[in-house]
């Protein structure tokens, strides 16, 4: 039985009060409660404050390039689909730099869990707008305010028929833990957008800004109804829904590849002599 101590990593270098701390603690608790050992999971990340996450727990880790966590995760999952693969990333890393990979990994539907720590700003580069920054907010490099429309990752994911789409809030850890566990136990690609205040640079979307707006999706909501899900995904502003917005039972890619129906690729043996037979095809 794993304990929280098993997951204790190096000391985080985040700003005091950062929303990432509670996501980190909650993630560890969720892993322990799901009886997962550190060596049974690989956490892949890109670059950004959220991408430092795997160093602050103990697990197999691939901290890759900015925006490129998902393709690395896909390669790992295809090579070893018995591995639990998580991606921790931020709104800039995933929705900005890595946007194309997000679209196509939703399509692939590998059993990968993508947690986007969404603070609606670039923290590591000290305060530029991210794709989820709200239109009109002024930044040093945007003296007239952000002119591009705010991206809606939830609506995007529902539109692409993403297997599991949810939103959580770093300020509601019990709820967040439930979502992490549901995502982990769901079979298919899961996108969890985790709202998280940036205490240093985001003076608009603060802890209290979120606290006043978020609400848990009401009982009786049917997350398998795609049209209703799209409507729910569009909610933003005065009221921001938290919970599972959409899920479906699309078959996962790794179960549709006959070569790995018995053993993951990493366990396949190799017989070099076999090439003799193939060479004959060239005569």
């Amino acid at each position, binding site marked *: 039985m794993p304990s929280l101590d098993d997951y204790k990593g190096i000391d985080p270098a985040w700003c005091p009060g950062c929303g990432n701390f509670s996501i980190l603690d909650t993630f560890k608790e969720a892993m322990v409660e799901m009886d997962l050992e550190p060596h049974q999971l690989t956490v892949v990340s890109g670059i950004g404050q959220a991408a430092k996450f795997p*160093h602050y727990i103990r697990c197999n880790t691939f901290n*890759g*390039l900015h925006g490129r966590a998902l393709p690395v995760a*896909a*390669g790992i999952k*295809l090579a070893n689909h018995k591995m639990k693969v998580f991606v921790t990333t931020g709104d800039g890393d995933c929705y900005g730099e890595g946007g194309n990979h997000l679209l*196509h990994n939703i399509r692939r539907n590998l059993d990968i869990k993508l947690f986007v720590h969404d603070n609606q700003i670039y923290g590591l580069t000290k305060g530029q707008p991210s794709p989820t920054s709200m239109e009109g907010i002024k930044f040093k490099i945007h003296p007239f305010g952000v002119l591009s429309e705010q991206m809606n990752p939830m609506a995007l994911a529902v539109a692409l028929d993403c297997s599991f789409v949810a939103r959580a809030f770093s300020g509601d850890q019990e709820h967040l833990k439930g979502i992490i566990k549901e995502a982990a136990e769901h079979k298919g690609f899961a996108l969890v957008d985790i709202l998280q205040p940036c205490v240093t640079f985001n003076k608009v979307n603060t802890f209290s800004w979120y606290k006043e707006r978020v609400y848990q999706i009401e009982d009786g909501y049917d997350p398998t109804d795609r049209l209703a899900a799209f409507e729910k995904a569009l909610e933003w502003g005065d009221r921001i829904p938290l919970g599972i917005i959409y899920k479906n039972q699309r078959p996962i890619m790794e179960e549709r590849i006959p070569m790995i129906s018995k053993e993951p690729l*990493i366990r396949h043996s190799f017989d070099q002599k076999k090439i003799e037979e193939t060479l004959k095809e060239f005569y």
Partner: protein
Amino acid sequence: MDYSIRITGEAGQGIQTIGGSLAKVFARSGYHVFTHQDYESRVRGGHNFYQIRFSDAPVMSSRDGIDLLVAMDSAGIDRYLSGLTENGLVIYDSKTLRQKHEDPNFLDVPFSDLAVEHGGNKIMANTVATGAVLGSIRMDTDIFLDILKHTFSKKGDEIVQGNIDAAKAGHSYAVGNCWKCSFDLAPVSGPKMLIAGNDAIGLGAIASGLKFYSAYPMTPSTGIMNYIAGKEEEYGIIVEQAEDEIAAVNMAIGASFAGVRAMTGTSGGGFALMVEGISLAAMTETPVVIALAQRPGPATGLPTRTEQGDLEFALYSAHGEFPRIILAPGTPEQAFHLTNRAFEMAEKYQVPVIILTDQYLADSQWTFDKFDTDKLKYTDRRLRGDALKEQGIYNRHTCTEIGVYPMAIPGESRHLVVTDSDEHDEEGHMIEDSETRIKMIDKRLFNKLPAIKKDIAPPAFYGSDTPDIVIIGWGSTYGLLKEAVDVLSKDLNISMLHFSEMYPLPEIEKFNYLDILKRAEMTICIENNATSQFARLIRTWTGFEFSNRINKYDGRPFTLESLIGEINAIIG
């Protein structure tokens, strides 16, 4: 005997089918064959050709003179008639081309009519044409009919029989109507294997235990993905089409990290997108093999044509200082073995290895008696199973004298595998301090380099042992240079130095090629690019400057005659 056949036509007219079948017939008969393709970047229309040279002696380049021109379009006649040899022959269908030639060098074969009459479908005109070529050179149709049976077996007996009848009709028409046909074929015995560069790379990768190939389609590298995908199920390989080349290289790195041999392939433009990934492979010390099939740039350039323009790009691609290995095969056989080398070296040194080819080698077919599979290596250097479980402590980036620490398979034990694109400590966690930074640079770069350098094979040296003239080349020009030496040796004291293990440059301890160059009166560096990139590499690393250079940068390969002409012009 040494004959060249050029099949010309629009894209979509089946000239690849005709050329491919003929090349196979000649190879199976036992002739030495060399083919190369010239095609435009379009699916239908335009003008393409497929050239086959075959002989009873080894051939490894294309020649200018055409002995037999198969014209499926009129442009073929307009453009290449002047290249016809004295006893050369043009085979065409006057009805389809709507032009009639009375010259005795022309053989009018009603491809379409014979196809309809004997095969039952106009579409079999290609089969008639192939049969007519075989009839013109007085070869029988047995092997061709076997090929047809195999090719069309899935389409049913009727189609097979139709093609057989069409082939026979074309053959007997040519035998009965070609007075001018004076081809004299030397007796040979077969069969020989026939293989193109791209297939050889795919085959070499499979023979090296490849388990994962991710790529985005890009000419002329796509053939590698096609070949491997065809063997996916048989060999238990996953081929994944990536959303872009950035994903392709990152996926391959992910799969390699997870514990399997992984590869990607592309051309210059896609490679440009991959370079950050190459830097990632270097920093995380994750083995990855990248095939870079060059085509002329900049930008989209000439998508279906050839150039050796990306050597320096491959050499200096990606930010930061780290070791890399660049291999540039000169023949499909070398492509097969060097792909195996690429995997072995990538695993041994945990570095990115680039296989540098070009459209010319990618699409050219060569014949060989056999590939020597005894030379293949497979060394599993991954820590797995009991060996891993018994390991006391595991730190992925432990510093060692040779710079390499075994890669553990994540999840196979309680050990954790941690790596980072940030500078990191031995465990794999990000650091900022200067002491660790220096230690890790030493590990990755300086500790690995001596062994890598020692491992690099010397260039191929062919011709006179003490030459007055040395012609130098790399990669796909191997066959051209070798044949040029054969031709020029009759009058000159000449030899060839050909580099296929390009970088790090071979050391001179094993074989002092610099000494040979310095002693020669004339050293001519031959490159399919505009600025002699290899000459610059040699000068940078050795200080040696070649006395002369030959460059070709029109997007086409050298032909044997054109190359010899340029060498003679320099020698005077």
